[in-house]
């Protein structure tokens, strides 16, 4: 067997095994349960949620912010590593592109779930005011979805052409689809030139788009005069937090794919080591912003801010807060500083911890602030000072997470996870000692 044949054999999409089928069916069931719960929410209204006059943003917005943050992985890894000519990126970029696309699509859907009257969605476009950060979000999310799609699609073209040939005999139907989506890719110089130029443009374009997306998301909060949100730190804080969430998600998904598809020869310990260093860097930056956000106000802030901070340090949200800070940031930093900590399995657990920590972090950004309004109304029900999502909210949120995983699962099933053409070119370049274009 020739080296190129083996490469295609190894990297071509494969059918799911038993575990893969069970995994997919489970995700479909959770997604369906969420859809049913959402239909019930639309019929009965948001009375089915535990949101109230104080906690008017709940778990849906936390989940939305988490998805937006995770989608940043496309900009932070793919584009940055490409523009800085880091060749070790090859086996990880496609997973990052897939996570970005799945996350931003689900972010768009999640924000609609939070709408009491989703039928009035069009009004946002008809009557939206450019002064409102919500409109900025409405504009940047579809833009980012398109950019993420193009970031995934352009590098895929040569691989789709390869898969067309590969499946021509065994699966003509699949081959036909790959052929259609490969856009008559023949690998001509002209096509390569256009493709490389386009990828370069997208790699540049996605960075400001990603920064705008994260910053707009931050400004949704910081433009409101509320304790915990009213901070000039918010934009940079969100970008660094998004890098942590994105790289954490990438590490986790990458490990699962490596094991499921037995790609140890392509996604190696070296890649996990590099990603580990990358993750520890993002965690350190995020920790720095957390210190700015939570420690410095303790010295300078007014009563309301101090009350809010004490609420986090030692109040009802203290266990969650310390889990997020210690579990989601400090432990990953300590573990990843050691070489042994950057091995695939420890990295998987750390990645998982970071993702869970990132999700709860968004909950802590949204909820405790809402429970402490500047103008407390006298005689409000005690329940307004607390918020815990209802069954509907939980099931819909789990469904959105399941849907994101389902998108990733389907894309992993039908697309080559490690770029075939790029890997072949790299192997060829190694043999001939040629410099490969980035």
């Amino acid at each position: 067997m020739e080296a190129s044949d083996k490469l295609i054999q190894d990297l071509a999409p494969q059918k799911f095994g038993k575990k893969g089928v069970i995994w997919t069916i489970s995700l479909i069931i959770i997604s369906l349960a969420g859809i049913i719960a959402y239909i019930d929410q639309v019929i009965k209204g948001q009375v089915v949620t535990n949101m109230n006059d104080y906690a008017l943003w709940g778990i849906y917005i936390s989940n939305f912010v988490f998805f937006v943050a995770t989608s940043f992985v496309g900009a932070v890894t793919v584009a940055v590593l490409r523009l800085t000519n880091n060749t070790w990126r090859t086996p990880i970029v496609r997973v990052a592109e897939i996570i970005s696309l799945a996350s931003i699509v689900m972010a768009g859907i999640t924000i609609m779930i939070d709408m009491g009257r989703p039928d009035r969605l069009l009004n946002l476009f008809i009557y939206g005011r450019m002064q409102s950060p919500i409109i900025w979000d409405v504009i940047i999310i579809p833009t980012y979805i398109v950019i993420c799609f193009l970031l995934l699609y352009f590098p895929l073209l040569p691989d789709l052409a390869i898969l067309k040939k590969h499946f021509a005999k065994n699966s003509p139907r699949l081959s036909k689809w790959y052929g259609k989506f490969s856009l008559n890719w023949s690998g001509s110089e002209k096509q390569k030139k256009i493709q490389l130029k386009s990828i370069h443009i997208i790699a540049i374009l996605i960075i400001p788009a990603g920064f705008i997306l994260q910053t707009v998301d931050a400004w949704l909060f910081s433009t409101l005069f509320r304790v915990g949100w009213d901070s000039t730190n918010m934009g940079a804080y969100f970008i660094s937090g998004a890098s942590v969430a994105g790289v954490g998600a990438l590490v986790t998904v990458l490990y699962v794919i490596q094991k499921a598809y037995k790609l140890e020869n392509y996604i190696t310990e070296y890649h996990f080591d590099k990603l580990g260093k990358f993750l520890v860097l993002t965690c350190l930056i995020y920790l720095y912003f957390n210190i700015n956000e939570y420690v410095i106000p303790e010295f300078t802030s007014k009563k309301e801010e101090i009350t809010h901070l004490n609420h986090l340090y030692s109040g009802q949200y203290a266990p969650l807060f310390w889990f997020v800070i210690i579990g989601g940031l400090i432990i990953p930093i300590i573990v990843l500083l050691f070489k042994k900590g950057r091995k695939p399995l420890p990295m998987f657990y750390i990645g998982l911890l970071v993702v869970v920590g990132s999700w709860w972090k968004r909950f802590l950004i949204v909820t405790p602030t809402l429970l402490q309004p500047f103008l407390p109304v006298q005689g409000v029900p005690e329940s307004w000072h607390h918020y815990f999502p209802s069954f509907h909210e939980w099931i819909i949120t789990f469904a959105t997470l399941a849907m994101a995983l389902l998108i990733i699962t389907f894309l992993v099933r039908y697309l080559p996870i490690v770029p075939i053409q790029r890997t072949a070119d790299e192997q060829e370049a190694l043999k001939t000692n040629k410099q490969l274009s980035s």
Partner: protein
Amino acid sequence: MNNKLKHNFIIYLLAGLVFIGFGTQQNYAQTPKKNSVRLGADYFKIMNGNSYFDIKATSKIDKQTQGVAHIDIIVSNIIDDEEKVLGTVQTNMEGIGRFSLKSLNLIKADSTNMYNMKFSFKGNDAFKKASKSVSFKDANIEAKLITKDSIHFIQATLFDANLNTPISERLLNVQVQRLFRPLRIGPEFNSTDINGTILVSIPEDIPGVNGNLTFEVVLNDSDDFGTVKALVKAPIGIPIVDESTFDERTMWSPRNKTPYLLLILPNLVIMAMWGLIIYLTINLFKISKP
């Protein structure tokens, strides 16, 4: 024959039932107990303006005093046992009605210069009839702004309008009109002197739109004269600077008043991004060409 008898019987039975139906209400319905109505009336006179009566109709229903809504109150002037009807006024939802007098010349006073008014309600299915009499004399307040040693004062004189004599030892309130309720100025009790006059100094720091202030001198709810009010407008307040941004392009203005910077900059960024996206899409078409 039998059929015809049966037919007639049914007709009579139905007709009988109809008539029984008509009678039932009258025979068996309880006659509703009528509630008493209490009428109250206050006389108001605004100098150089109109005069009016504020009438209130109340009733105690289920041990609670409530306003009687939508009843007609007849307003009459009593002159030597003669009753001259001036008009009617209907109460609102709160049981309150206002009867305006364009001029006091429309009513006549008795020999003691007392105006006697009668407010009566004829009664209806729910309420008993009621009436209220009010008597008052006509009084005038002449108020003006004077300045002594750079200090502004309100000087006001109360006098009997018919006799043109000053009225002494009456309490007059001096206040300045504000948005929700007037602001009292000067001493708590301003009693008119032997000349029927009061003199109240005005603080220098009262704000007003364009510096305009409207002062009120009020004889409040007097048994003899009702309520008499004189208004004095004076541009002696501290001008309020109108800080409204209603017509400006601000972050909180409607969409047609978006700040230009916010229109231009984000739209340029969006157009640049979508321009590149279109260019990339065209590249896809270029690649797909054989």
